[in-house]
């Protein structure tokens, strides 16, 4: 099986704890790039990166527009901006309309990752309260990437993983432990 260089993770209500645990397990020499698109309060600009960074061994950054993507980093979609991954391996941001009532929208990040990174990306949908990310995960699978959904039985809110499973038809239903192992084994 191909190992992906890029991992996109989408989460909403109930996903914070697993994200903290994922971050905690990443070693300082982690050689992949992670993009985190999480539904968050749009007025709260500061504090989130700092809270996540407390547990991290690698840099977590809220990128600026046109930033070049580096390995060994976690890029967190900024509040009130959509995050796209460009074919030029740069990040672009946008203030376009809400998608699935969300900005940042998981679908937009995942769809751009699917088309820009093809089979070099794995998409992971975590706990959440709406259907955002389902179409994006389907696009990742269709473009040769690896699609994972957190086991809905483990999720605090299962609307998002259930919708993602239905839309993408992925068989990769992973527990929290398996998700962490998958990310760590993407060396």
């Amino acid at each position, binding site marked *: 099986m191909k190992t992906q260089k890029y991992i996109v993770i989408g989460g909403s209500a109930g996903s914070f704890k697993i994200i903290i645990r994922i971050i905690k397990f990443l070693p300082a020499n982690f050689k992949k790039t992670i993009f985190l698109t999480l539904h968050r309060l749009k*007025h709260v600009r500061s504090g989130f990166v700092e809270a996540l960074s407390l547990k991290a061994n690698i840099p977590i950054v809220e*990128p600026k*527009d*046109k930033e070049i993507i580096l390995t060994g980093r976690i890029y967190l979609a900024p509040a*009130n*901006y959509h995050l*796209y991954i460009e074919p030029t391996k740069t990040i*672009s941001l*946008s203030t376009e309309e809400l998608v699935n009532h969300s900005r940042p929208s998981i679908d937009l990040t995942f769809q751009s990752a699917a088309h820009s990174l093809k089979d070099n990306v794995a998409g992971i949908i975590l706990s959440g309260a709406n259907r955002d990310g389902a179409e994006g995960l389907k*696009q990742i699978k269709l473009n040769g990437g690896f699609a994972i959904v957190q086991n809905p039985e483990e999720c605090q809110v299962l609307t998002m993983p259930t919708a993602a499973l239905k839309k993408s038809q992925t068989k990769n239903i992973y527990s929290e432990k398996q998700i962490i192992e998958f990310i760590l084994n993407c060396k």
Partner: protein
Amino acid sequence: MRYKKTESVILTASELMSILQEIFILSGKDFRAYAYSSIKRRIEQIILKENCESANKFLIRLRKESLFIEKILPDIYVEDTEIFRDAETWNAIQRTVIPILRRKQNFKIAVPNCISSEELISLIILLDKANILSKANIHASFLLQANIDFAKQAKFPIKKLNQVKRNLELLKNKLQINDIFEIEDKFFYLKKIFYKNIEYTTKNFFKNEKAVGYDLILFRNKLIYFNNFLYVQTVEHILEKLNKGGFLIIGIKESLGINIKRKLKIVNKNENIYKK
């Protein structure tokens, strides 16, 4: 823009470029140097909305239906998101920019590439509350005539009012919603007393040689839609149009290249306020 829930449309890079080229030929509006993923998605959404089955069928409609281009253009542009978006930026403008403008007998402001006018409205409210709107000469350039027609009424659906209230609460000078807006059942709009000293135009700000000598250029969240080439070109134009000591304000997640930053002084790093 409300999209129909049909299957996705995925354009190839060459299909997208053919469409953007056709739009340029038909309208003179040039999106060919726009940021790839965003403009691609916007065109794909329009194709879905118009129920075109393929890029080719969309191109045929563009060429054959004379009014089709006018219909789709507004959906290509991205509207401002909200009045007083990023309250911290507006608080910083009040602290750092307004006191400098206040010292002048009169001053020129440019708000280029306006679409839905929330940025323009936020600015004129601040200037009015600082009692300096009467000294301002505001050049607001719009991308479409329809945008000007909207801006002159600035009538927003009532569902957006809560958002404005929340943003006003975050401003340091505690503006009251009833002092600023007239509120009806389904809409709210800016009171007429705020419409002073604004010049509305559809002339391309960056190609308008007479548009020079500005004390402030407000250009937030516009550069993010340009590719690197257009972005550099646009920032250079902006610098030429700013007076020495004039302010440039861009979006909090936008950045200026090192070569450009050398020509500007940082006034507020977090809020991206610069001074020439």
